[in-house]
């Protein structure tokens, strides 16, 4: 009776709820029964099987309860009087929030990043992680040119990162060039590879481009892995020289004819100096990427990229050469990956093909898309969340990537356009306040 009256007031059909949860838990049982229920174990004579029925039970029960709660929430929401939602006002409100966030958030982020090494909590570990995160911020901004602005889906971005890293390591090893000479060279090399790859494939439609770039990333990795005499194969290259600070070395003892940083400034030697120096180096490189992107968006070529992303046919009829325009975006994106790569090489002092797997490309792409394509602040936030966040869970090594994958799916389902999705139109025909002639399709970006 109690149940009945409850049914009447809230309008929730509990049998339907039970049925729904039952089906969900049946599916979970099907999913779990073999892969979770049995575990293959090595024995001296071969393989054996162990069972884990408790795990299956836990999985099924938690799916049942979870589905029940989810469905209950949904039903109780639906049974309430429908609320009128003004979509346009909502959109406008979120646009204002995002806008404000971008204008205020940006400088705050930069300010925080500038003082971070001198904060009281900034020990070796913090600065090191921050450097690591900044590499991904820079890569994200670099890829943003390709994916966010030009709308080209690049799944092999890590190849250019690898080219940058290896070209610095090899230039330093064979020609004894310093980091500062190699940095532009590495960028040029990566951009060269970008042109080389881009020229034949950029005529292809989006998905084909994705698969070809993915293939290219793998090719580079396989070559690095197998060309033993030149790249060291799986052993990688080690002993990559560190950068100097205007000729001052950041070492304990200076080599002949030069001074160390500590000697010059009359400081006690500390390994922190080098870490902080590397931190600022990548910060400057990353900000350079950011500045470059912001400026080039206002130039004809940047406008052409964004126009091309929105409608290729329209661009072609307006006399924009799609292949050349895409090629510049591809090459410039590759160049920044090259810079980041050579920084990575000098920071690690050791590189191997291990660091340049497809998963890296996926992570960088995830940063760009999760951040809201084209949004510079969004990309930075996504990098901090994904890289910094997973760094926090380093102790749980095995669950880290599992959570990473799950998080990617969850954020996409929750916010398909990314965290900071709103994008201001690059150019406004009518200034704010004046009534627009048509609805501005400002948020209708994305890859065509």
């Amino acid at each position: 009776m109690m149940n009945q009256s409850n049914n009447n007031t809230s309008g929730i059909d509990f049998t339907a709820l039970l049925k729904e949860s039952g089906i969900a838990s049946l599916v979970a049982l099907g999913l779990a029964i073999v892969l979770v229920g049995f575990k293959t174990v090595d024995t001296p004579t071969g393989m054996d099987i162990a069972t884990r029925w408790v795990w299956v039970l836990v999985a099924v029960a938690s799916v049942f309860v979870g589905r029940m709660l989810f469905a209950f929430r949904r039903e109780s929401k639906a049974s309430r009087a429908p609320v009128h939602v003004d979509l346009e006002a909502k959109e406008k409100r979120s646009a204002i929030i995002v806008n404000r966030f971008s204008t205020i958030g940006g400088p705050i982020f930069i300010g925080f990043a500038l003082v971070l090494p001198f904060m009281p909590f900034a020990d070796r570990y913090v600065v090191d992680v921050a450097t690591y995160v900044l590499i991904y911020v820079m890569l994200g901004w670099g890829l943003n040119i390709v994916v966010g602005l030009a709308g080209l889906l690049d799944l092999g971005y890590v190849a250019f990162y690898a080219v940058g890293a290896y070209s610095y390591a090899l230039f330093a090893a064979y020609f004894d060039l310093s980091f500062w000479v190699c940095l532009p060279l590495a960028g040029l090399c990566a951009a060269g590879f970008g042109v080389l790859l881009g020229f034949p494939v950029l005529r292809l439609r989006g998905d084909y481009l994705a698969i070809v770039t993915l293939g290219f990333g793998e090719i580079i990795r396989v070559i690095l892995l197998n060309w033993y005499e030149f790249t060291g194969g799986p052993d990688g290259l080690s002993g990559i020289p560190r950068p100097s600070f205007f000729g001052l070395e950041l070492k304990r003892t200076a080599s002949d004819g030069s001074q160390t940083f500590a000697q010059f400034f009359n400081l006690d030697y500390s390994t922190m100096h080098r870490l902080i120096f590397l931190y600022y180096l990548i910060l400057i490189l990353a900000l350079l990427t950011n500045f470059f992107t912001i400026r080039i968006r206002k130039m004809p070529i940047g406008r052409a990229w964004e126009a091309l992303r929105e409608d290729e046919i329209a661009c072609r009829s307006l006399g924009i050469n799609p292949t050349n325009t895409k090629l510049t975006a591809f090459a410039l994106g590759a160049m920044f990956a090259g810079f980041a790569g050579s920084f990575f090489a000098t920071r690690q002092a050791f590189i191997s093909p291990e660091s340049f797997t497809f998963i890296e490309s996926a992570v960088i792409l995830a940063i760009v898309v999760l951040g809201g394509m084209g949004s510079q602040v969004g990309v930075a936030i996504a990098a901090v969340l994904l890289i910094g966040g997973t760094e926090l869970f380093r102790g749980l090594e095995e669950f880290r990537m599992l959570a990473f994958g799950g998080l990617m799916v969850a954020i996409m389902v929750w916010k398909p356009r990314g965290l900071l999705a709103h994008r201001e139109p690059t150019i406004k025909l009518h200034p704010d306040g004046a009534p627009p002639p048509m609805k501005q399709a400002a948020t209708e970006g994305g890859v065509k």
Partner: protein
Amino acid sequence: MEYFIQQLINGVTLGSIYGLIAIGYTMVYGIIGMINFAHGDIFLIGAFISLITFLVLGIIGITWIPLALLIVLLVSMIIASIYGWTVERLAYRPLRGSFRLAPLISAIGMSIFLQNYVQLLQGARVRPMQPVISGGFTFLEGSAFSITVSYLQIVIVLLTIILMTAFALIISRTSLGRAQRGCEQDRTMSALLGINVDRTISLTFVMGAALAAVAGMLFVLYYGVIDFYIGFLAGVKAFTAAVLGGIGSLPGAMLGGLLIGLIETYWSAYFSIEYKDVAAFAILVLVLIFRPTGLLGKPEIEKV
């Protein structure tokens, strides 16, 4: 010459496995226009389920090979189908109608998730399996190179042919196949004509996953070792095969699979085994440059 023929046989076997996986890619791409990145991981799951089922059957005492094979085939197909269905339901359906990159990112996330899920549950070590089907025919015995066709290779190719035929029949003759072809051409119109589009798409994923599971089982039988990383490479190559054959086209997927299998085998046989993956991708790039729609794909006309 004998060596050449031997490699031909090996290549066709490998190509059959790639072809089976490629079908899943090509169907999903045809119907909703997305790269189902997690498909390679469904293949991985199929392979692991087959391995576990074989071991369990061995423990229970079912050792008559045809029966054991049949049970493993059914179990892996059914469970992989549930995985395929769940992946579509959780990660892709909420994003339908969203902008284009969203499902792709979701799929990449799903792929990472599934790969680590398998690693977590079954361990990161390589899993070996005793050969189940051994023996074969040997031709030209006594000469410098004899040609061997193992029973296993025959089973793989036959099973692939049977499944392909069944599949082609489903697509061309049944109402489900008609619904799928309808959704491929125009989803809105199909919905207006009373086709349950969501259900059709789900079933497409289920069918693709079932075929990938078969490929997984054949992979376990053929190579005898698996680890949690096989899904990625096999997935990428199968996708390459699908693009090579012309994405969206079923015979194209099979043809592409065979070609990739042959290219890889011949490359490893005559040039270098290290660069076999490079060969497959290089061919892909060449094909895309000179024939962007793939070998059997229809050219797409872009309209404003």
